[in-house]
């Protein structure tokens, strides 16, 4: 049933298998739709190509985080042992690279790991407890066994009836409008 509302987030089709979803995304792309998203219970790498997902920022931020962690830990050790609190123990030099390796390594991993997780979460726009797709009742199955394709209203070619007809033509289990 399609509920009339002044503005909608998009129109969503539900599929039972990953293969059907992938075919549907391919068909939607070929039909000229660009603003769309797929919701799946398992990661599907096939979708990267179809949806043009080429975001390497998580890796980049992790690299930057790791370098900062390394520089920070190494710098802290050298600053402490040469300027802040130099201790002469048996005439050992104040700057010692070998004894700095373990903590520098741990600092690298610590900051890189935290950046990897935090940048993934923030770049995904999370935490976001509310999102229009949750308005579709059957969407609860996106985290269980169903595969969803949502063509969003922001797409320049979006037309409510045309998109609904197009999605119906892909033989999904269900088509529903996503209230905003």
């Amino acid at each position, binding site marked *: 049933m399609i509920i009339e509302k002044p503005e909608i987030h998009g129109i969503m089709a539900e599929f039972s298998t990953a293969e059907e979803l992938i075919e549907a995304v391919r068909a939607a792309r070929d039909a000229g739709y660009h603003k769309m998203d797929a919701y799946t219970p398992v990661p599907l790498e096939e979708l990267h190509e179809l949806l043009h997902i080429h975001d390497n920022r998580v890796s980049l931020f992790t690299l930057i985080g790791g370098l900062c962690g390394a520089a920070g830990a190494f710098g802290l050790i050298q600053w402490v042992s040469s300027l802040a609190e130099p201790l002469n123990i048996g005439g050992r030099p104040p700057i*010692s690279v070998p004894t700095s390796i373990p903590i520098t390594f741990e600092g690298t991993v610590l900051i890189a790991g935290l950046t990897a997780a935090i940048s993934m979460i923030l770049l995904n726009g999370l935490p976001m407890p509310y999102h229009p797709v949750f308005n579709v009742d059957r*969407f609860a199955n996106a*985290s269980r066994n169903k595969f969803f394709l949502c063509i969003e209203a922001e797409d320049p070619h979006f037309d409510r009836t045309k998109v609904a007809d197009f999605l119906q033509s892909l033989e999904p289990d269900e088509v529903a409008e996503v209230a905003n």
Partner: protein
Amino acid sequence: METQQQDLSKAQPVELPDNIQVGPVVAPGHTLATVTDRIANAVLRRKIGLGWLFGLFVAFGVMQLLVVSAGWLFVKGVGIWGINIPIGWGFAIVNFVWWIGIGHAGTLISAILLLLNQSWRNSINRFAEAMTLFAVMCAGMFPVLHTGRPWLAYWLFPYPNTMSIWPQFRSPLEWDVWAVSTYFTISLVFWYVGLIPDLASLRDQSKKKYQQVIYGMASLGWRGSAYHWARYEKASLLLAGLSTPLVVSVHTIVSFDFAVGIVPGWHTTIFPPYFVAGAIYSGFAMVLTLMIPVRKFYNMEDFVTMRHLNNMAKLTLTTGMVVAYGYMMEAFYGWYSSNTYEFFMIKNRQLGPYAPAYWTLIFCNIITPQFLWSKRIRTNPLILWLISLVVNCGMWLERFVIVVTSLHRDFLPSSWQMYYPTIWDIFTYVGTLGFFMTAIFLFVRVLPMISIFEIRMLLPSPMRIKEPAKEPAR
């Protein structure tokens, strides 16, 4: 072509010849829906059983020993323990190394086996990582209690202070602070990142409002978007790549606590690899000790199959053999070094007052795992469970022997002493076992003990499975 290759590496378990393989990774007949429901229902729908309540009650009771003995320690100081001069490191360090070693199997399963594409680990990684976290918590308590003034433990971290003093960055003990705290943080982050999609599943499956709110908040509003999964997979892989050297570094640095000292029996270059192998050995034993009863009581035999037990038993055997090599090299090194003190140390270990501990450890850690050569034993959960208990004891004794026998008779006979633990040493140790078990009991009730979305990925050709139509299409 490229996507096809990725698909193959992602979706299909590594197939071994039939004579090596013992059964499937996931029992046949499961679909995306049944996997989700079976694991989620253990948390959401299962009633609180008497067995679970009894277990939690016992574990919580045992944990009170820790509370009491730590409280008494705060009042009286470390004098209530059996430590003395020269055995300044007693139970506290033995238990620290034992617990942190146990944690290592969790990271091995979650990170190293992920990088090696061993998809069977998908069934056990969640549980093993939880075990890691709780074990590291137990481990972390001991050095802090051992400082004698635990309320000043923050002095271990570098921070600007009015005393203008800084930690000694050249001390392996300070390296340990960094290693263990980084290890805990990254393990927690990795575990939580792994939980996010499953928390969303729990949110969507739960019928009760409070569960929906709690799991909904914890899942950060995860909705399984393809864009999110892409970044998610990348972050998981990066975390696995970072955790892999991290886990090796942690026990290496723990071994530096010993190896950098000049005490006979500690000052050897074999310590880092030998400690890392021992850590993974004891960790796999602990995973078996916990997983065998849990899979039985929570009917998870479909996901933690004989294949898993068999594989873990093989890894236990392998790492056990590395540890055995370590023991042999220690003895060989004592003789080959031609160093009076080293040779005396090894003779004292084998024939001195702590000889029973040494020979028990040899029995537990070298002789017992040899039974695992037999496939019939590897696939017999009860015997495997008993072997894992023996290995746990053996690995605890190993740390006891390393710490105590090296210290109690060092260079000067005039300073020789015996070490006997006091009742407070034993209470503290047993109390952490109670803490650990309490945490495990709570974990299996509030979080999915098996990674749901990773099991979905294990289903045979997950791309093509058509759900049997249970409800008529509307």
